[in-house]
């Protein structure tokens, strides 16, 4: 019957709408429990990034100001963007021979895509990914970083 | 159909086809002339029914260009690769976009990036590049000192 169908249609339509409203109404009433907002700059103290989060490349130095980079340029070759530039120098060894050593490890953060290929390529584990992610600065030149600290040396025994 | 059966069926279709050894799928070298007829046959011959053009591109071999058509059949699930050698200075081939509609966009892309001229294409304009772009960026000898960053 036409009228019955018509009323059934209208009722079905209204009930489908009410179903949706019930859901949003539920969230409205339980907003304290259900809210998923992260109050980002305020929660800096409690914010914990995942251990493996890739924020930038760093070179860990130990307490003697020594790192593990031999200047082999494996990372430079592995990098797809030309982010890393290694400048080497010749350094005299105690035996009197000259040996290639790292002078500057230039890392250009603005070119880096955090692909982790350099860390994977490094044979001595000299570089790793840090969890920092707030990289914005006012001067673009600050993004070109020198990773080895001044006067740092390569750790004994690292080849 | 297996590779051998396909090869036999295709030779029957057009005797001037040559086949390449190796590769995952059967590779066919077809002449640029009358390619449209071949394409129609590939599409409509029962038993072949290559109705799905899933990839169409071009390769610049420095001496010549090669159009590469990857075809598959949705009913028989067999694939072939059709290659057409084109003259690099005046690359021309008939469009297949009346057979496989997807070719319309793919051909426009190849037209602007490789400079292949598709005859009878209904709407052969630049799709990705700006209208006033000069040169064919995916050709091997393309050089753009302004927009290209060399690592």
């Amino acid at each position, binding site marked *: 019957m036409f009228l019955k169908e018509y009323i059934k249609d209208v009722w079905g339509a209204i009930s489908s709408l009410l179903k949706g409203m019930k859901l949003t109404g539920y969230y409205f009433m339980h907003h304290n429990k259900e809210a998923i907002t992260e109050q980002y700059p305020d929660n800096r103290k409690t914010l914990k990034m995942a251990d493996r989060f890739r924020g930038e490349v760093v070179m860990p130095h130990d307490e003697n100001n020594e790192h593990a980079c031999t200047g082999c340029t494996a990372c430079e070759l*592995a990098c*797809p963007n030309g982010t890393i530039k290694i400048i080497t120098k010749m350094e005299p060894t105690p035996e009197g021979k000259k040996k290639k050593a790292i002078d500057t490890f230039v890392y250009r953060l603005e070119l880096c895509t955090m692909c982790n290929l350099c860390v994977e390529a490094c044979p001595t584990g000299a570089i790793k990914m840090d969890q920092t992610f707030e990289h914005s600065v006012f001067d673009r030149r600050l993004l070109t970083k020198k990773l080895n600290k001044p006067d740092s040396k390569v750790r004994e025994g690292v080849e | 159909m297996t590779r051998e059966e396909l090869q036999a069926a295709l030779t029957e279709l057009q005797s001037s086809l040559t086949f390449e050894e190796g590769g995952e799928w059967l590779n066919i070298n077809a002449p640029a002339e009358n390619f449209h007829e071949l394409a129609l046959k590939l599409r409509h011959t029962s038993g072949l029914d290559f109705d799905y053009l899933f990839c169409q591109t071009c390769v610049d071999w420095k001496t010549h260009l090669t159009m*590469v058509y990857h075809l598959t059949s949705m009913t028989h699930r067999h694939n072939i690769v059709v290659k057409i050698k084109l003259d690099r200075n005046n690359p021309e081939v008939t469009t297949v976009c009346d057979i496989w509609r997807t070719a319309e966009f793919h051909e426009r892309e190849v037209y602007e990036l490789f400079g292949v001229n598709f005859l009878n294409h209904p709407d052969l304009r630049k799709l990705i590049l700006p209208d006033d772009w000069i040169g064919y960026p995916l050709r091997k000898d393309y050089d753009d000192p302004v927009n290209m960053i060399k690592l």
Partner: protein
Amino acid sequence: MFEEVASTEQGDLVINIGPQHPATHGVLHLVITLNGETVKKVEPHLGYIHRSIEKMCESLSYRQFIYVTSRMDYLSSHINNHGCAMLVEKALQIEIPSRAQYIRVIMDELTRLASHQLWWGAMAMDIGALTPFFLAFREREMITDIMEETCGARLTMNYMVPGGIMYDIHPDFCKKVKEFIKHFRSKIDEYDELLTGNIIFQNRMKGIGILSKEDAISYGCSGPTARASGVSCDVRKIYPYEIYDQLKFDEVLATEGDSFARYQVRLVEMHQSMNIIEQLIDNIPEGEIQAKTKAVLKLPKGEFYTRIETARGEFGIYVVSEGGTTPYRIKFRSPGFSNLSALDHIVRGHKIGDMVAIMGTLDLVIPDIDR
């Protein structure tokens, strides 16, 4: 473009949708010709986010070019990476350890889920419902957290390497994935309550934007877009890779080909993805995660083609190798490009609002189209 404007009939309205427009989810530019509210013609103008990835890859080595593909279809970056890794493995005939295979498949399905969730929210926003977007992001957040913990990034993970995966899963991974599946199973009904059953939504979707099976094939559509038209094209079923041939899952097919079918297919695919993850998550075998590979990969001379099922459809990688360390020519067959080409055909004769809804159901990701 100017000739086009001149050739339209008297009384037609030519409107630029985009490059900056809320409905295009990125920088797609559509020039639409309208007769009143009715769309007469849609003409996509691409290239606003073209980064020439194909040319770029010609100078990158086979280890390096994988990360670039994350930037194409950023919503299924894992699957793109997976396809590239598979291509290298196929060319060099590397057998990857089964642990890596399992993890790869789980990651793929998680990515598919995340992508479909984002699509759900974005599509709801296209038709004017704003709340679903946030509901979708609530669940997606759990996936991105899992990804962050294991892969080290939230969107462009670069977790697949030729020969396996970059590093082992995080110890919490299995627990968190199970938690997520449990949570999502309870929440996916809300998706139906809020949108699927809604009478306005159904009227907006049913019978709109019908793509016939023949057209879907002819336009080279793939993925859920084609499957909604009854085209069986799931690469996971037809050309199984990794361990998909050992898994129990259905290829989701619909026959209507309208917007609602495309919507339903994606929604059911979410259930299927969860089923797949549940089959795998308890059975990840122990063992190596990477096969032994050379430091410098050199592909043999020849041509290679790999296909993989992303969230949007069939992603193909065609590599011509001259035997060197870099590809001679690389072509990415992106699913969005072919799906977009069908847009004009589907949209003609519909209203502007429908055009936006259809674009939503096609699930276009613009960097994927432009590459």
